[in-house]
């Protein structure tokens, strides 16, 4: 024995002084590194001694790119293609050439590790010595099939949770083609029998490369493993080359929190504003503007539940718990045909399923709120639940304010969600419940309360190998209550609600190798009650005013075909036919012809019975996309997109207020429509680890709604007296550069975007700004965002966000004049001035506890500074007349740097995000 060890020692390199740990986790990034050099590096890093004979490893080159891996596994991986064995002995690693030898070792243990080298438990797998790659053999060899393409399917799942992965990609190197996995995690390709190199990719997961040998039709499973076990970070993905969809952005809440956020609250919506083409309506305000559209032109869904107010605390935080978000897709260019009803974009959030293997919990504590997520399997590998809750405790901040009005105020919010999911071989089923609630009382002057309740049931089923169906029923109820007690005699209370119920069915149909069909139905039913404005308090003399109930139905049928005639060409063409009808009972008023629509000009009325259609609006929407792969690393995409919108927000302010009412298109208010054309160029620069894209778009909307000067929606049930409809022109250029390096990753996005409005009716009262084109309130020509994450050490990383925006348009007074000895102000043309530009730098640091595998609680700290330079960014500019002099003031929300600390924890080491 001793002799043997001495023998090995003679052959070996390395020092023996300190005892290392083969189970220590390291990050491994080597490209074509000689094995000897690789070992030296590991020995230096870890103090683990590696014993081997130099001649055994002479020709072995190591290529590993993994963020966290044990020393032992790294060496196993490096030696995968050889017959050398890895043994642990006294915290050292000993390589051996022959089996017998090892069995003789007294302290020898083979340690089967769960991770890293994951030989799929699949019949088709066998190792192959060449190329260090695992080979997958599909089907049995049959020479008759050699000239026919064979269907190859792969189901992609998360290794630790068993969860299916949607949008994972396969790329066949030899053919330069690929596809992405669908809603049930299955990807499908047609290949001629032969050998291929298949790369599987999913952001936040380790890349897998397999050698696949196609013999005949067949399928296999791929289990992907998460890279690293950081608790949270938000990563942007959307491999544009692979999924070939223009104008789509995805934010994957793989692991959150690196990006610094105001008050330490992680907010996926705020992160979306860092992407090109998406801007916030204002600091700390609810609402985003996508490609020049107004903030009511975006649809938000969480697991199919429509969400009408996405914010907590008026917009300081989003109403979605970041810890349960799995996938966050933003469609702004080509919008898939299953979506409709909004002009500018669709924000679609998918939440995670509960862990199907182990019970786990995690959460966090920030200055404003605390959150907790608990998940557990019900039937192992089949069914699980996940519960999440978040609640604020922000009143303590208010209490510290010396102003008595504020210290008597109260602001709080909570959100809760619960999901049960069942995963059977051909069927997946899920029930999801969501509730979000906000309450704000400004002393006894005003009170705002709003809430969203949503429930969805979804069922996915594979009917045949070629047809998959997804069905869902969802209902959402958004309510608010406002009490305004600021004027005793005019004090009022208003209750409002909107309820949308939907049923959708979607079918994915792989008709042939070249035709992938998608078709389905979509039913929507709306009930909204604009509520009654009623006197509040004994002294109020406010007249009770019923603003009325509205109902509407919006049904659609759609069909699309993704046709891939050539390996480098994809053409998607689809049509969606939707039918919208506002329903009774309702009275519509007829106004005197060629007169302004004001109450005084009503000459007649038409009554509609219960559920009687007031009018029918049908829209064929055509959407098409072409994707041309110019070379291995480049794509050009063209898209044409048509949308319609039947639901508008009544708001004269830019930010979405908690008492902004939604309103259906009706007898007078016409549905609006939009045509958008976009062209994008996408390029990968693998040598620089850069990805770049440039997109231009032109969009034109009809029946864009604007509100008359001085419109007040609490004064009249007749919205048509306060609304004008016109055209909106938007165009822009979006440039994005993404880097994903070992230590450095992030992106830069520049957007040039214009949004111009023309309200030019026939009569004077149908015009705004004399019928001349003017910039929309949210017209922001230049915006630049940069997000940089730098990993200093395994457990320490820093991030920074830089944001610049051109100032928002505003109408300024330009001069004063006198009429009958009284002075008046003359204003500029609408929005012909701009408030000062916006600029902000944020910084954050993430410090994690040690990464030992068997620790009970893992935790980390997120420290952040928001508005590092303390710049006084203007939210608005306003004017006041003092002694016949007009003074102008700038109003900012944040004018100092804000420091926050957030603690995040996770129970056990189960990969749960």
């Amino acid at each position, binding site marked *: 024995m001793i002799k043997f060890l001495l023998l090995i020692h003679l052959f070996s390199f390395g020092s023996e002084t300190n005892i290392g740990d083969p189970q220590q986790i390291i990050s491994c990034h080597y490209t074509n590194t000689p094995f000897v050099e690789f070992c030296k590096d590991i020995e230096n890093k870890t103090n683990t001694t590696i014993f081997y004979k130099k001649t055994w490893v002479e020709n072995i080159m190591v290529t590993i790119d993994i963020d966290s891996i044990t020393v032992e596994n790294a060496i196993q991986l490096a030696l995968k293609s050889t017959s050398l064995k890895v043994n642990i002995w006294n915290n050292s690693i000993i390589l051996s050439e022959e089996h017998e030898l090892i069995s003789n070792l007294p302290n020898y243990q083979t340690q089967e590790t769960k991770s890293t080298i994951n030989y799929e438990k699949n019949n088709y797998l066998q190792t192959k010595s060449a190329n260090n790659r695992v080979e997958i053999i599909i089907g049995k060899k049959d020479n008759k099939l050699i000239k026919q393409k064979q269907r190859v399917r792969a189901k992609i799942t998360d290794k630790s949770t068993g969860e299916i992965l949607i949008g994972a990609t396969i790329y066949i190197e030899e053919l330069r083609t690929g596809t992405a996995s669908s809603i049930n995690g299955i990807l499908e390709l047609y290949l001629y029998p032969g050998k291929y190199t298949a790369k599987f990719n999913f952001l936040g997961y380790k890349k897998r490369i397999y050698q696949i040998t196609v013999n005949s039709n067949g399928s296999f499973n791929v289990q992907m493993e998460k890279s690293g076990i950081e608790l949270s970070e938000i990563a942007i993905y959307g491999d544009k080359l692979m999924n070939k969809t223009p104008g789509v952005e995805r934010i994957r809440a793989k692991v959150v929190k690196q990006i610094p956020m105001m008050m330490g609250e992680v907010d996926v919506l705020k992160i979306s504003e860092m992407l090109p083409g998406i801007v916030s309506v204002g600091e700390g305000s609810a609402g985003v503007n996508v490609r020049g559209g107004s903030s009511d032109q975006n649809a938000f869904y969480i697991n199919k539940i429509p969400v009408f107010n996405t914010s907590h605390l008026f917009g300081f935080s989003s109403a979605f718990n970041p810890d349960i978000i799995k996938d966050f897709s933003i469609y702004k260019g080509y919008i898939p045909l299953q979506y409709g009803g909004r002009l500018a974009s669709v924000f679609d959030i998918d939440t995670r399923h509960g862990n199907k293997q182990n019970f786990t919990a995690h959460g966090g504590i920030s200055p404003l709120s605390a959150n907790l997520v608990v998940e557990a399997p019900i039937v192992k590998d089949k069914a699980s639940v996940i519960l999440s809750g978040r609640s604020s405790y922000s009143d303590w901040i208010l209490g510290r304010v010396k102003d008595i009005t504020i210290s008597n105020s109260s602001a709080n919010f909570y959100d809760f969600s619960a999901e049960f999911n069942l995963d059977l071989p051909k069927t997946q089923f899920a029930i999801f419940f969501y509730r979000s609630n906000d309450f704000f009382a400004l002393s006894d002057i005003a009170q*705002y309360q709003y809430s969203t309740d949503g429930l969805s049931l979804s069922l996915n089923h594979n009917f045949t190998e070629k047809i998959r169906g997804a069905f869902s029923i969802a209902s959402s109820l958004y309510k608010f209550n406002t009490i305004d007690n600021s004027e005793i005699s005019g004090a009022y209370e208003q209750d409002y609600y909107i309820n949308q119920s939907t049923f959708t069915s979607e079918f994915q149909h792989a008709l042939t190798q070249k035709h992938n069909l998608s078709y389905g139905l979509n039913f929507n039913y709306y009930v909204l009650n604009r509520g009654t404005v009623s006197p509040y308090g004994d002294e109020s003399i406010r007249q009770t005013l019923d603003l009325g109930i509205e109902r509407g139905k919006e049904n659609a049928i759609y069909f699309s075909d993704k046709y891939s005639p050539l390996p480098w060409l994809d053409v998607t063409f689809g049509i969606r036919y939707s039918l919208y009808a506002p329903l009774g009972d309702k009275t519509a008023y007829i106004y005197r012809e060629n007169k302004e629509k004001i109450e005084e000009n009503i000459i007649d009325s038409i009554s509609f019975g219960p559920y009687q259609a007031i009018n029918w609006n049908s829209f064929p929407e055509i959407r098409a996309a072409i994707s041309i792969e110019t070379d291995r690393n480049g794509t050009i995409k063209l898209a044409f997109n048509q949308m319609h919108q039947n639901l508008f927000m009544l708001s004269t302010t830019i930010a979405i*207020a908690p008492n902004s009412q939604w309103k259906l298109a009706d007898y007078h208010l016409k549905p609006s429509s939009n045509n958008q054309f976009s062209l994008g160029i996408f390029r990968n620069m693998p040598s620089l680890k850069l990805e770049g894209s440039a997109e231009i778009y032109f969009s034109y909307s009809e029946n864009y709604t604007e509100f008359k000067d001085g419109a007040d929606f609490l004064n009249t049930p007749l919205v048509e007296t306060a609304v004008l409809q016109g055209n909106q022109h938007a165009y822009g250029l979006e440039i994005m550069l993404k880097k994903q390096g070992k230590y450095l990753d992030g992106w830069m996005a520049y957007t040039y975007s214009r949004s111009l409005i023309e309200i030019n009716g026939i009569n004077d009262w149908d015009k705004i700004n004399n019928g001349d084109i003017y910039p929309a309130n949210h017209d922001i020509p230049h915006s630049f965002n940069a997000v940089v994450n730098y990993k200093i050490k395994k457990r320490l990383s820093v991030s920074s966000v830089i944001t610049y925006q051109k100032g928002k348009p505003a109408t300024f007074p330009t001069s004063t004049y006198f*009429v009958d000895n009284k002075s008046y102000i003359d204003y500029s043309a609408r929005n012909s001035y701009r408030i000062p530009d916006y600029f902000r730098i944020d910084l954050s640091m993430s410090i994690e506890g040690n990464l030992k595998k068997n620790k009970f609680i893992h935790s980390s700290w997120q420290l952040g500074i928001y508005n590092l330079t303390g710049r006084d960014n203007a939210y608005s500019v306003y004017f006041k007349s003092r002694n016949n002099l007009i003074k102008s003031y700038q109003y900012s929300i944040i004018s100092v740097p804000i420091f926050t600390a957030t603690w995040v924890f996770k129970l056990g080491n189960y990969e749960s995000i």
Partner: protein
Amino acid sequence: MNQFKKAIVFVILAALSSSCVKLYKPTIESIDSANYVVSGRLTSIEGYQYVTISKTSPIIDPGYIPVEKCEIDIIDDKSNSFHLEEFESGKYRVWMNQSELTIGTAYMLDITTALGEKLISDFDTMYSCGEIDSVYYERKDIPSSNSIPFSYIKGIRFYIDMAGDETNSKFYRWELTETWEYKVAQPIIWYYDGVSHHEVPPDATRMTCWQTNIIGNIYIISTENLSANSYKMYPLSFVNNSTQRLKHLYSLLINQHSLSEEAYTYFNDLRLNTNQDGGLYTKQPIDIKGNLYNQSSPEQVVLGFFSSSEIKQKRIFIKDVPNLTIEDPPCDTIMLRWGVRELSSRDYPAYMTGSDTRIGSGLLGKPCVDCLQMGGTIVKPDFWPN
């Protein structure tokens, strides 16, 4: 909206005590783009008809900029023209006889400026004006706007009932002129303007004054949507109890103007813009359109409106409002430690206390002596009852 935005600022900055509002100087294009402002109101009352022409002044340097030496004519729809004379800088007038001011006639303005620019107005028809049925008041307490907890301002609000018929215009504007009598506590005995003056006997001529004020608010209605061309209880001005207005005798003159629909729209927009609370960014100001144009350079906007109205008048007097105590500022005397030596020429004439022989060291406040100090006139208006 503003309220909760303000509150959010506090939420966020609670521990940081930082001010979020600061003065901001926007760069605003200035005087180069000054526009003409024409204000002209033709009334049915025989006498002078006035037109004023001025220019807008930059927002940073506001002021009245009269436009002189213009040639102005009022032209009616029968092509009669009436030439106006400049009687003060930028102010023009012409005497028109009753026969030249007839209901149903439309009038327009034709202006040639000294620079040769031609400004013209649309024709504005003089519609007949309904009768003023009655003007009356009610005792009202209104909450003061910006105080917490709420406090009330005591006073009276005037209301008008208008009774027109189908032949009358459906658009009205009321112009209010208030006149009130006020008194000071004592006659002038001693005053100092570098030298001491002793009035013997005391000068009692400046103990009672009358002041007249045009109320600037815009009061307008449209009866187009009503079944009859009349209106009950339209709220007019509010008079509080913190001045002497309601102490002795108060008079309100109501001029009821008939308007065309265009004039109504103009004044209504003007009213809405004036009522804005400075939240310029959150709500768009109204783009007000008048009825005058610059023919020489059509892209140059001409502000203002030329209107023709028939006028009905009513004057009411108010004395001794029940249940209302007048809380006008009392007569206070400030004792000067060093007597008149503390006074400077700014204070002259300074009304002082004093004995029969010597000036005292008490400075009398405004409500004590010489009613002209508070504006007004000692000439009793013609219409004032004895």
